[in-house]
């Protein structure tokens, strides 16, 4: 991998790549700053426009929007006490109090540095860990891959914090949606009901945009109208002095470590990392009693962790083809659309492409500093945009984006259907991320199961008796499924006691 870095850097030093890096990061920061958009919607909206790009620029653009939006959420969190992204919710706790006492610029300075450091370290982790993990996965055949995907699907349990049953059901619905169309083994149409447009199945991108972006707009349309938020006085980002960092570097290191570890675990995300890091930061900081009153340590804890997740979440995605969270599930879909099969073969067959993606991710996190300082001033007045304008613009852009995928009018109808489905499910407390994860992993799950059954002549038990790796992964799957049940039972016992 490291030997491919010179070629990778050559790929990145083209006009297209540089523009992609800068504009993508800038776009991500602005979109992330807009409450209601969020990282997932931002990535989903940009996704269609990457289809006309080369493989590396397409992935780098999505990474830039992803990393930029995670940081961008801190801008609205600090200036208007409304997180632009869920992972910036913890940033509100100390960021807005600082802004209220006239230190908005300084609060953004703390957030910016912590985000940049968190992102850079996660880029290094990605560069070092992903190839190692992929090398292990070279020993995987269809049976082991099936067991691995089952383990990956347990991340559905993790993202379904409110109801495991509903989360699993959403995942199953997603897997079913992926089965509509031609059977992958014998080619026979399934669940098309005579509609020729369904022979190629539901367009994944149309479904992703529908369930995430469109359903969000529908949800907002059904909520009480919010007033335009009061903006804290803000004259520009002010970077903290070196002396101010004394006694805080350990907290930053801890936050970044928490973010990286949590990022690698499938199913967890930046929001989880931010809150765990905030709680740990409050516990371990000598200024812990000031948390929630405008303490920079709180900003460092949340922003360092949430940006550190970005690279870690890409490790299982790039190395194993298992998404770490909903956003990496969308990225996995992008890789597939570009003809890139993530997993063990990717590192071996495309080392330069992979190295360019990793190097690009490193550069993106470096760009967060100058672009963050520049764009925070630009984004600030945009935060006062009325929700009506923002949401209507989202729908128009979604229609444009989905149409560009294949120029197929049917995809627009799929987007509309997915939006309605997402709205209905979300109203009933059914999480949406598992649906996308199921739709992304479903085809490979079916293919590897059927290939494995062909190899074992129809004996499913032989999957686990004949493969120690598959058996080990099955045990991990059962443990991962049991943890929420055990945790729930313990919580009930504690309440009863």
């Amino acid at each position: 991998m490291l030997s491919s870095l010179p070629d990778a850097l050559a790929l990145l030093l083209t006009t297209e790549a540089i523009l992609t890096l800068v504009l993508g990061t800038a776009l991500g920061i602005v979109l992330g700053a807009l409450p209601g958009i969020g990282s997932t919607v931002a990535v989903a909206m940009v996704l269609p426009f990457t289809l006309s790009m080369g493989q590396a620029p397409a992935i780098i653009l999505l990474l830039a929007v992803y990393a930029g939006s995670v940081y961008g959420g801190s801008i609205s969190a600090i200036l208007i006490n409304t997180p632009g992204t869920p992972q910036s919710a913890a940033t509100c706790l100390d960021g807005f109090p600082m802004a209220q006492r006239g230190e908005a610029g300084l609060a953004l300075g703390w957030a910016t540095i912590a985000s940049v450091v968190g992102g850079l370290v996660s880029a290094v982790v990605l560069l070092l860990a992903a190839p190692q993990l992929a090398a292990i996965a070279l020993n995987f055949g269809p049976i082991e891959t099936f067991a691995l995907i089952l383990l990956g699907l347990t991340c559905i349990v993790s993202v379904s914090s409110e109801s495991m049953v509903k989360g699993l059901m959403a995942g199953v619905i997603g897997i079913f949606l992926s089965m509509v169309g031609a059977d992958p083994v014998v080619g026979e149409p399934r669940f098309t009901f005579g509609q020729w447009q369904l022979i190629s199945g539901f367009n994944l991108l149309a479904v992703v945009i529908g369930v995430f972006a469109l359903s969000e707009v529908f949800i907002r349309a059904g909520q009480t109208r919010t007033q335009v938020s009061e903006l804290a006085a803000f004259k520009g980002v002010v970077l903290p002095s070196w002396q101010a960092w004394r006694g805080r570097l350990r907290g930053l290191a801890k936050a970044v470590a928490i973010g990286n570890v949590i990022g690698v675990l499938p199913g967890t995300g930046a929001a989880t990392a931010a809150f765990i890091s905030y709680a740990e930061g409050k516990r371990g900081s000598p200024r812990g009693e000031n948390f929630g009153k405008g303490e920079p340590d709180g900003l460092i804890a949340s922003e360092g962790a949430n940006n550190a997740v970005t690279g870690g979440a890409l490790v299982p995605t790039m190395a194993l083809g298992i998404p770490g969270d909903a956003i990496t599930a969308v990225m996995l879909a992008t890789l597939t659309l570009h003809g890139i099969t993530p997993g063990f073969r990717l590192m071996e067959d495309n080392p330069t492409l992979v190295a360019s993606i990793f190097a690009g991710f490193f550069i993106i996190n470096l760009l967060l500093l100058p672009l963050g300082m520049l764009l925070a001033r630009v984004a600030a007045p945009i935060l006062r945009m009325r929700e009506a304008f923002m949401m209507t613009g989202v729908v128009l852009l979604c229609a444009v984006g989905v149409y560009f995928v294949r120029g197929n009018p049917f995809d627009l109808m799929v987007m509309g259907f997915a939006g309605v489905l997402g709205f209905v499910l979300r109203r009933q407390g059914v999480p949406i991320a598992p649906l996308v994860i199921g739709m992304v992993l479903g085809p490979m799950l079916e293919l590897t199961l059927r290939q494995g059954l062909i190899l074992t002549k129809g004996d499913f038990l032989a999957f686990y008796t004949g493969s120690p790796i598959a058996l080990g992964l099955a045990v991990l799957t059962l443990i991962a499924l049991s943890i929420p049940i055990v945790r729930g039972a313990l919580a009930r016992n504690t309440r009863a006691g």
Partner: protein
Amino acid sequence: MSRLANEQILTQLLLLLVGVALLLVTFQHQSGGLPVALSPVFFPRIILCLWIVLASVALFQDIARPSKSPPIGLLLSALAYIIATVIYVNLVTRLGFGLSSIPFAAVALWIFGLRNPLVIGAYALIVPAALVVLFNHISKMPLPTSPLTYLF
């Protein structure tokens, strides 16, 4: 409250019935003597059985312990927006992006509470026009045009 609980129960019941219906569809398939692993309905049946089991469990959970549904609130607004969007996505390729986006944007802004006709009109005209100019004429990534003219 009972009305809110019924919304959840009805939705879960609908999901359960859809799962059952889809499973029944798989039994219309003729296997033709194919081995199990090669049958196109093998995996769908597994998934649909899981669907039915999970939907049943969720339904019983909702009946036994109805959780707080989101308030009805502006549900009618949401439904109106959904209808407007469904009509819009059907008309985009028939009337062209520009012609279909203008009324949609106006309706969407009105549903979101805007009432100033000047603001609504300006947004509904300017934003779709800007997108048409950007994509059709500058970046040459054409959006659907109307039957009247290639310009929009």
